[in-house]
């Protein structure tokens, strides 16, 4: 395979996410800090999986690698048939544009844009029309934010901001939606509402969802729970 070329694995019966022997080592000064020590993981198309682990277990590192935000040190990561390990920075950027959607703990909405424009800009970056389809309008109704779309993030509650972030994460119809502690900044009522929406989204649209959390109660909404400790799946 020539440099810069993405290796594509035929989809067929392949899982949506296939991770083999994944390691990630950070260099802090002269010290090597292993964050992932050989992770193997398969997630099927349409699955809603929770990765549960304590702080420092490596779950956020796994999230960053699966999302193409940072490269792995070794191992293979295949998402929707695309091998991330061999990708260049630009190819990882393209992956984030088309294949992966994100939901962050701190919502990460652009504060200068309205909720609607926060979603549209992702459509724009993804090279799609910025006009919402009727199908997506239905998703907005499901998320319960249709009447808040003209508001800027500062005028929205945490729960509303997270629901806008979920809408933003799936607007380009990514193969997977990665959610990193989506309820970490929410109270229990809003947490339940957001998790309910994520579960509903998975069941109604078949969206593959991988949620990182340290909270077993949040993980209970997923169809499968995977535990991670000291950089390994246990």
């Amino acid at each position, binding site marked *: 395979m020539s440099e810069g070329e993405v290796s594509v694995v035929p989809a067929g019966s392949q899982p949506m996410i296939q991770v083999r022997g994944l390691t990630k080592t950070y260099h802090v000064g002269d010290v090597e800090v292993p964050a992932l020590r050989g992770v193997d993981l398969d997630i099927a198309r349409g699955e809603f999986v929770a990765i549960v682990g304590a702080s420092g277990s490596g779950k956020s590192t796994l999230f960053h690698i699966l*999302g193409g935000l940072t490269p792995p040190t070794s191992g293979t990561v295949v998402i929707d048939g695309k091998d991330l390990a061999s990708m260049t920075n630009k190819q990882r950027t393209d992956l*984030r*544009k088309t294949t992966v959607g994100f939901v962050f703990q701190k919502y990460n909405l*652009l504060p200068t844009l309205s909720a609607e424009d926060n979603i549209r800009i992702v459509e724009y970056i993804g090279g799609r029309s910025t006009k919402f389809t009727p199908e997506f309008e239905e998703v907005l109704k499901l998320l319960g934010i249709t009447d808040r779309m003209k508001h800027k993030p500062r005028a929205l509650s945490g729960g509303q901001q997270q629901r806008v972030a979920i809408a933003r994460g799936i607007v380009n119809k990514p193969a997977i939606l990665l959610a990193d502690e989506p309820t970490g900044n929410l109270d229990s009522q809003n947490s339940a509402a957001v998790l309910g929406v994520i579960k509903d989204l998975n069941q109604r649209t078949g969206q593959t969802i991988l949620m990182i959390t340290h909270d077993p109660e949040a993980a209970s909404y997923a169809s499968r729970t995977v535990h991670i400790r000291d950089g390994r799946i246990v």
Partner: protein
Amino acid sequence: MLNKLIFANLTHRPVRTLLSVLAIAVEVTMILTLVGVSHGTLDSTAERARGVGADIVVRPPNSSVMSSLSSAPISDKYVAWLMQQPHVALATGVAIQSLTFPDSITGIDFASFNKMSGGFTYDSGGDPADDNDIAIDKYYAAQKHVQVGSTLNLVNHDWHVAGIFEGGKLTRICVKLSALQTLTGNPGHVTVIYGKLDDPKLAQQVVDDLKTKLPSYPIYTMEELTSMYSVSNIGMLKDFIGVVIGVAVIVGFIVVFMAMYTAVLERTREIGIIKAVGGGSGLVLNILLRETLLLALLGTVLGIVLTYGTQWMMQHSVPASLVQETVYYWWPIAGAIAIVGAMLGAVVPGIKAVQQDVTEALSYE
């Protein structure tokens, strides 16, 4: 969509945006004002020279068109001599004494000057009749807050204001030729001699002829003389404009550099978000450069508007000393200078933004 984001970013920090635009505007105003004053002062000098009504001009030996004249080295016998030359219908000599830059006082032989130019058009009063009389144009009168009957001290002499005239002919301040010659201790001498021909079309021929007779004297047709009153003929002024433009570019660079650097630092997380959702380095750079371009364009427009303000201020505070013109063809030049300075200022912040690690940017507080 991108423009919407850029506009939202700029309006999100209105004070910073306003200060950046204002700084770029000052840069543009600085350039346009200097250019406007240079052109205006030279054009008004040319206009006053044409207002004499002469066809040819004899200037002192070793003087150049742009050198300031403040002595009277030409014997006034040459005035009579010039009158006797072929095709010369009328000649008049004037003495010039420099005052505080850029003003000067001119001694005039009113009899011959009035014949040649048609005389000054007075708003009040008339030609100086006495050796202590002085006539000034309305701009100088406004600047000095004087009127007919007031006393004006110039060249250590108290003058009685005898007349206030419309501008546009020869000088702003004039007295009788004999009075100035006596006051400056240079009787019988003039600084410049103007000649009117019986046929203006023969001006070049007459000048060529006079040059053979007075080889050491710079002699010009009026058309040639006034065409030389341009910025490009004054090396020092050209250099000065160059220096001001250089300073302006540096000012624009620093202002935009600081504004954009702060913006990039402040928006670290937002840049991380854009990168996380698939925005590449090109898009991040594109956003910053478009913001900079918008700042520079707004600054240019405001700078042009402010230039009218400086023009108004000069007209009302120093109407006789500095004349500022609106030099339209310099608008795009000043705009381009502002844009270049601003874009240079955005390069380093842009590179910083592009190089930001996504995961670090997303965790930035």
